[in-house]
């Protein structure tokens, strides 16, 4: 069953001006339910723009987007977010710093249909138990700090909390935009492990932008490569499992007719060597 379908999605920013930029140049993408695809590409290839098109940060100029059989092309952002989880590189973006851990989770839990109608209900004991149980799974001791403001947490803890919030009510689609890139290596590993286990456990369909070529091939079941607002390469199955990082870079050279100019990709390649 198809979970996400994008057909001929285009977006031009600042049309008709000197700053005109074709950010998405006819993107076609189909994700099966339970697919976990990684996305690589140069700076400005359109990876984040693709995510924003899906979440509704802007409405696409052309094309259509279908999520779980429902056409969401013109659905406003806050309605799409009911079924789409989105994590950013900046760990500060996904949580409200002056509110407690418990209050942040309560907001995320609004996605559950039953809670949405109860405007004047407060956080119940049952909710608190659920939050505590889920927080314990993170293994960060956050379950004992539920009354503390989120602003006191470290970047890694906040990102783990954001991940938990995005998946508290299982989303149809989870978008991860380099969500471990701003964390220190040990914390990044930890958050990545959590991501893997949560995604696998709930069978979430997932798209993940990464600059780490190793990760792009190891994680998930599919790798996409973007360039110039298009998906230029899409590999899965046996072909993918045989692929090395050098193969991937070579493939990029062929498809894009240029070197991969993402500085962090090059750095991570040096690190890997």
């Amino acid at each position, binding site marked *: 069953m198809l979970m996400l379908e994008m057909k001929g999605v285009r977006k031009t920013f600042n049309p008709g001006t000197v700053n005109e930029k074709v950010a998405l140049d006819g993107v076609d993408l189909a994700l099966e339910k339970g697919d976990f695809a990684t996305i690589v590409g140069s700076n400005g290839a359109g990876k984040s723009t693709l995510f924003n098109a899906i979440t509704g940060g802007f409405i696409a100029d052309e094309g259509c987007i279908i999520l779980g059989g429902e056409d969401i092309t013109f659905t406003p952002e*806050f309605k799409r*977010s009911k079924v789409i*989880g989105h994590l950013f590189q900046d760990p500060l973006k996904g*949580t*409200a710093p002056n509110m407690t851990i418990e*209050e942040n989770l309560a907001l995320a839990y609004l996605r559950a249909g039953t809670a949405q109608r*109860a405007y004047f*209900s407060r956080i119940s004991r049952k909710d608190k138990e659920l939050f505590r149980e889920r927080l314990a799974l993170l293994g960060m001791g956050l379950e004992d700090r539920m009354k503390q403001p989120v602003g006191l947490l470290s970047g890694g803890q906040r990102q783990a909390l954001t991940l938990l919030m995005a998946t508290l009510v299982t989303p149809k689609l989870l978008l991860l935009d380099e969500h471990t890139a701003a964390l220190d290596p040990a914390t990044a590993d930890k958050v990545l492990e959590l991501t893997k286990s949560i995604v696998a456990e709930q069978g979430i369909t997932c798209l993940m932008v990464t600059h780490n070529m190793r990760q792009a091939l190891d994680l998930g079941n599919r790798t996409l490569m973007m360039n110039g607002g298009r998906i230029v390469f899409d590999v899965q199955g046996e072909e993918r499992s045989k692929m090395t990082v050098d193969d991937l870079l070579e493939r990029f050279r062929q498809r894009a007719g240029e070197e991969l100019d993402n500085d962090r990709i090059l750095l991570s390649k040096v690190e890997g060597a």
Partner: protein
Amino acid sequence: MLASIFSLNVLQSALELGCIYGLVALALFLSYSILNIADLSTDGCFTLGCAVCCQVAVTGHPVLALFAAMAAGILSGFITAFLQTRLGVESIMAGIIVNTGLYTINLAVMGFSSNMSLVKVDTVFSLGKNLLAFAGSWYQLILAVVVIAIAGALMVWFLGTRLGLSIRATGDNAAMVRASSIDPAYTIMVGLCISGSLTALSGALLAQYQKSCDINVGTGMVTIALASLIIGETLLGKRSMVLRVGGVVFGSCLYRFIVAVALRFNVPAAAMKLVSALIVAVAISMPAIRQKIAFEKRKQEARLRHAKTHGKKEAV
């Protein structure tokens, strides 16, 4: 001398006014501290509450007048919110536009006269005087305290509900709110409507307290309410919601007390706006001044330590 300044009478009337004006401070607490929106329609909205209250108290009933004023305040807040969330007017502009428009509306409500009197009609305070006969001369304070206590308690309760949490998150991290399937346009709308109703209620109570309404009664109200808010937050901190809301009311009472003391020192009435502005400026700059003093102190200590260990003065 000191005894006459801090007499019970001064304290009592400062508390009465502090509680009445505390409602505006509570309104700004919601729009400014919680939602992070500078809503400049406060002045006009306060006068609107005054004017509507006077008109309804004269033609109807003083209690009904309070609710009518709140309804008018909700409408005013709705228009401000509609301008900024649906029509793309910047929040400060939306407030200024509504404030300007309200001047004419307020005159119209008062029958195109610049003032109105409630001397000959019943007010909630004159009704309360009979009801609270046991309290003697304290009946006005009791009424004002009851109103602000209800408003404060409702505010604390509301901010803990799911809708209240959504409003708090809107001011804290708007991007996260959209990602949590909440429409920020809706939460801003609800927040500003509540804020407007509190502002208008404050104006309505003041009209009945003073038994009059004047077209300029709201001038500078936003500054005064902000001062109360910041005095409260500076003195009581931001640890819990109860403390924050309590701090707002406390700040408002303290502000009124300072004003009362200033009046006792025979500061002419015409100079009161300047005194208010000074109090506000001092209150708002207090955190920065404190920080500066702490920094200078640390620098001084470090210099002394340096001089001790190296036996000579550090070049500046």
